[in-house]
């Protein structure tokens, strides 16, 4: 035992020797923003999109004088989509890399685990993708904000869309779901069902629901099950690569020829549309948290053009959320006149800003941005972008689709 300790000592000594060097910061240093995204594995594409959006914002801001006269610098950490990894990564960004503020989070599970630790870090976090309602609900705190649409907002809008479909207007109105078998899929169905019942008490929410495991690759059994059932409407919350597989397999099965109202809650994500091309059927309801052709304003025009110039395809919702979050920090830091964590967090509360998706306000009661999902119906192919267009676009009132503050369970 004694002999073995020599190596232990060496490790401890080298570790100790390097400790003192990190963690100092000077007033004229750049402002450092930490990005926490999935950068490896199946969902790495979401981290990459976020990085693209952020890079555009950071370049624009730095070219026009930075924030408070200081340049902005990004530091990224890979969350691997795991809460345990993300929490240690956030600690590293704040304590070791001296990040002034944090953006990120793609996964709801990561958000659920990380958000309760934010008050300890004393730095603001703007969530740009993860959609679990709880982090601007019962787990909310003064340091956590979300600029992207959450599940509750998207499902309220979905219920409003569903209420207008033929399936719901007829007498027998059976709705079911196909969603990934984890919190997101189950929550989507619960919120959708509750909102739809409120609008139209006659709808029948079928007890036979379908939750294939996340990453299942083969969805045919679930597609068949819905086709054999009495369902007239189906809410599909499968996303990403799984959704690409789902739609191709559904095409093979003739799923879209059935007399069904089909609603995809994350169907208009550009990465999915790009991969699918013409395989995405026409005439189905698709939603996304941000559709690049939905908004007619200067900020959006500039963002979409810059994105197309830089990367050659239209921006995804994840790029937009991350892009806007950097501008949110610019505005909040300038309003606070400092990069001090609690002060910036306070400045974000109730703040309104111009984002590509219009004027966005972080509601003071729960720190959720009052934004609208974009629902539409898939139309003909876009002549240049190689993806389906969205027709019958619907943008909802951000306040209207949001839960009331009492309903969120958030006490700030």
């Amino acid at each position, binding site marked *: 035992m*004694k002999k*073995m300790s020599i*190596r232990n000592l060496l490790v401890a000594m080298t570790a*100790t020797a390097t400790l*003192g060097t990190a963690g100092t910061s000077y007033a004229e240093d750049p402002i450092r923003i930490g990005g926490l995204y999935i950068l490896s594995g199946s969902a790495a594409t979401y981290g990459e999109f976020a990085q693209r959006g952020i890079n555009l914002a950071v370049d624009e801001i730095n070219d026009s004088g930075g924030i408070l006269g200081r340049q902005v610098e990004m530091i990224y950490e890979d969350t691997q989509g795991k809460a345990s990894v993300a929490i240690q990564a956030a600690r*590293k960004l704040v304590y070791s890399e001296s990040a002034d503020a944090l953006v990120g989070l793609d996964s709801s599970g990561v958000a659920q685990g990380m958000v309760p630790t934010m008050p300890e870090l004393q730095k603001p976090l703007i969530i740009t993708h993860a959609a679990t309602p709880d982090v601007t609900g019962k787990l909310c705190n003064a340091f956590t904000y979300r600029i992207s649409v959450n599940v509750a907002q998207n499902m309220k809008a979905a219920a409003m869309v569903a209420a207008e479909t033929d399936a719901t207007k007829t007498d027998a109105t059976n709705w079911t779901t196909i969603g990934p078998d984890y919190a997101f899929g189950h929550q989507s169905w619960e919120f959708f069902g509750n909102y739809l019942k409120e609008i139209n008490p006659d709808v029948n929410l079928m007890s036979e629901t379908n939750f294939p495991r996340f990453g299942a690759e083969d969805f045919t059994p679930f597609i068949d099950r819905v086709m054999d059932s009495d369902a007239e409407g189906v809410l599909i919350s499968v996303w990403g690569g799984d959704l690409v597989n789902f739609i191709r397999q559904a095409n093979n099965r003739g799923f879209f020829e059935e007399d069904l109202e089909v609603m995809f809650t994350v169907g208009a994500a550009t990465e999915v549309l790009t991969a699918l091309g013409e395989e995405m059927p026409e005439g189905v309801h698709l939603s996304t948290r941000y559709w690049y052709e939905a908004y007619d304003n200067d900020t959006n025009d500039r963002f979409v053009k810059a994105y197309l110039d830089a990367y050659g395809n239209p921006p995804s919702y994840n790029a937009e959320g991350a892009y806007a979050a950097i501008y949110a920090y610019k505005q909040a830091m300038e309003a606070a006149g400092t990069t001090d964590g609690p002060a910036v967090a306070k400045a974000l509360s109730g703040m309104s800003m111009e984002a590509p998706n219009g004027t966005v306000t972080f509601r003071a009661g729960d720190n959720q941005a009052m934004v609208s999902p974009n629902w539409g119906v898939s139309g003909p192919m876009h002549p240049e972008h190689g993806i389906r267009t969205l027709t019958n676009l619907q943008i909802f009132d951000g306040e209207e689709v949001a839960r009331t503050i009492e309903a969120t369970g958030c006490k700030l």
Partner: protein
Amino acid sequence: MKTKVLMAILAVVIAGLIAVPWIASYFYVFIFTEILILGLFAASFNLIFGYTGMLSFGHAAFFGIGAYATALVLIHLEWPFLACLLVSMGASALLALMIGFLSVRLNEVYFAMLTLAFGMMVFAIAYQWRSVTNGSDGLAGFTLGSFGLGLDLTLANPSVYYHVVLGIVAIAAIVLYVICRSSFGMILKAIRQNPERVSFAGLNVRTYRLVAFVIAGIFAGLAGGLIAPFLRVASPELLHWSMSAEPILMAILGGTGFFLGPFIGSAAFVLLETWITTYTESWMLVLGIILALMVIFFRKGLLGTAIDWWMEVKK
């Protein structure tokens, strides 16, 4: 002379570990907490791998159930922390007894595959039993109350928590070391080298393997009980097979033939990950290359290689 030098080195290391919150930057308090907890996890694994020769691919089941047990007790019963840890150890002991009873009869690859299957079954249950485990999101939002034994400790303070972890891991490591050095530990080593001979000597190999498996499970559960309040979350990925791969990598990296090997491996793994991810997003690539080199050329691990070198020099 040698003994004195080594005693001195050990004393310096212990003093250094105790002093981390005062001599290192704040972030390294978290890093060393993680190193200690994962080191205990890897050391518990090495009792069955390095000592007994059983490659388990489901060790995360015990780590994870320990984390979930502590999280559940904190959420629903709000017991003192020491009591939570005892529940974690009890829960992992029971689970290890069940899985071990069914698994230890198999060898090598079959043992590895069966423990993988059981580990993933536990993962699947935690992932889908939403009413108890909160499904894929895991359990979060619990806070530590008192420590127990009437000690007045502010566990929410990371430095205090670090010292608590250091104390508990030190005690656990001593207990593990005593077990390894006992006649029981010697028999385990003999089983690894030649199970037939041990069997001919009239000893029941399967019972010894089962006892080793349960002890390893208990200490993994203890490490899990320590990780939950540290991460503030108990989530299904702590039970996934990729989490079972971590103690294997750490044990190999540090050296499976030495008691302190897994701790060195844990330190090397965590520090390398921290430093390398600062410069590149391709940490997995670097890890793969390091692991390949270790397996091919430095099979004795960092510690074994260092000791070989030292023995050469000091001759």
